[in-house]
């Protein structure tokens, strides 16, 4: 499959998804200018309930998929994910602090929870980077991995501490946030997420060949002329930024970052110049489809999108693991 084919799939998903849902709507009514927007239920379902949701799904899906590809190359491990280095945990911690302590600020249209979530992920990134760069020889992938695992564990402990302080209703809201939700209902959070994510993608766009090389080992890459320290720093930055933006928009949606790069590699091979853009596109399609399933399969109630990605992604990931170990 080529990148163009993945692109076509993404466009198809993006066009079909807002039309399909548990509530029947008529496209002609949606676009009927004669009806004032405030009275047009179909238009509101399309433009307020569904379209932002589909766009958010695409952003989150491509953001997590790209982060997954980059982390896997950086850590030289196809089982790595955006969660491995603790960036996701940092985002979750930020969100929980905002929810539990009833933080109620809004900056430029971004509300407290996504803002705190993003800051949390940035904080986690900073800590991992400092821990790993403390060794003057540069960031070796083992050191990075250990730093990330230690940070994840520490942040997990902080999360549990906060849950103790939280009262019953806050705990409910925390749990709800952690299930992930793409029902953004407005375009402001999408625009806010687009800024760091576009930056992360631009940076990641300079990396594909370098990712191929560093995945063969730091010395091997160095001897072929790669500035490995700089490449690792850039990879860490772009993948963490992408993860932080995605998680603060939709919550920690599991398995996308591991499973999508693998499916893509099975279809297009290992060359990152194809894998990176293909994963971005397929990640978007994957989450759009999972969200569509989540909101239609058990009408009138909805499943959390994280449940669907886990149900589809979990067994697949296990299969991959066994295949690799065999």
């Amino acid at each position, binding site marked *: 499959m080529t990148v163009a084919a993945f692109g076509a799939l993404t466009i198809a998903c993006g066009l079909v998804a807002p039309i399909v849902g548990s509530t029947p709507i008529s496209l002609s009514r949606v676009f009927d200018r004669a009806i004032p927007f405030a009275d047009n239920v179909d238009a509101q379902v399309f433009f307020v309930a569904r379209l932002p949701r589909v766009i958010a799904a695409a952003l989150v899906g491509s953001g997590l998929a790209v982060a997954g590809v980059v982390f896997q190359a950086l850590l030289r491990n196809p089982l790595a994910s955006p969660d491995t280095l603790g960036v996701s945990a940092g985002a979750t911690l930020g969100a929980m602090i905002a929810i539990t302590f*009833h933080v109620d600020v809004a900056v430029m249209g971004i*509300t*407290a929870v996504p803002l705190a979530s993003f800051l949390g992920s940035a904080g986690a990134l900073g800590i991992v980077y400092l821990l790993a760069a403390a060794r003057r020889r540069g960031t070796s992938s083992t050191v990075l991995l250990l730093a990330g695992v230690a940070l994840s564990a520490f942040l997990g402990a902080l999360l549990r501490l906060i849950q103790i302080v939280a009262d019953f*209703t806050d705990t409910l*809201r925390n749990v709800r946030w952690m299930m992930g939700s793409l029902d953004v*209902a407005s375009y402001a959070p999408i625009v806010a997420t687009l800024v760091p994510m576009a930056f992360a993608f631009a940076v990641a766009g300079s990396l594909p060949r370098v990712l191929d090389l560093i995945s063969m080992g730091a010395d091997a890459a160095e001897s072929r002329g790669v500035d490995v320290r700089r490449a690792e720093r850039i990879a860490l930055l772009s993948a963490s930024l992408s993860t932080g933006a995605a998680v603060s928009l939709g919550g920690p949606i599991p398995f996308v970052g591991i499973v999508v790069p693998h499916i893509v590699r099975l279809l297009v091979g290992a060359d990152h110049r194809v894998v990176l853009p293909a994963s971005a596109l397929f990640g978007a399609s994957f989450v759009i489809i999972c969200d569509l399933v989540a*909101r239609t399969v058990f009408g*009138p109630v909805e499943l959390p999108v994280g449940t669907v990605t886990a149900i589809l992604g979990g067994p697949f990931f296990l299969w991959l693991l066994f295949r690799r170990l065999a």
Partner: protein
Amino acid sequence: MLVVAAVAAAASIALHAQARRVVSIIPATTEMLFAMGAGDRLVAVGSYDRFPPEVEKLPRVGALLDPAVERIIAMRPDLVILYGTQSELRTQLDRAQIPYYAYTHRGLGDITETIRSLGARVGVTAQANAVAGRIEGQLADIRSRVGKSPRSKTLLVFGRERGTLRNIDASGGVGFLHDMLETAGGADVLGDVKQQSVMMTTEMVLARAPDVIIELRYARGDDTDGTDLGEWNALPAVPAVKSHRVFMLRGEEFVVPGPRVAAATERLARLLHPEAFK
């Protein structure tokens, strides 16, 4: 229902049982005990107990997910009120030979049942019956007031991410909030969804088209003045938004199915049918 009946039977067999050192890890039963004048018999309460203010002086011994078993036993209680689902705790108490009362949380009717049976178990039967009777009377009064009035399709929201319409949690067609709403003269717009809590999305709100939206806020430090209900204006086609019938009610009596439930139901009823209370 069966558990409550069985325990009530066991309690009456015990004949004028008295409990003097009671541990209650459930906010509802803590409130009930105070309401029936047995608050002075409490030696420890749960982590989430907030009412009445007297509970602040009592030691805390955990809640549903994290009961502090050793501390509870160390209190030397003669009755522990716990959730029916806490089988681990029950086993530990059986081993320590400490009697317990298993509480199950269901609908509005179960609240007065529980008050009566708990009262008998603790030994304040007369006061318990009085409290239960008062509640039933108040609820009957509300029912009769709103009886004939037309019922609006109402959405009862008890959680939402601040500043947005995300992660809306609403009451479904089961549970005491639903019963309260129906008693107060509202038609639960999610009445057909047989879940206590429903994760709502904006599409669902548009599809269900409630005439009234009531947001319940609990937190004590929650000093918002209701202006943040403006987020609902993102869905102007919803009848409740169009007719400006989006309201907020603040108070913990909406999350605790205890003795204050009648007062809470009345607040709901006054909002839905102001004319019935003139």
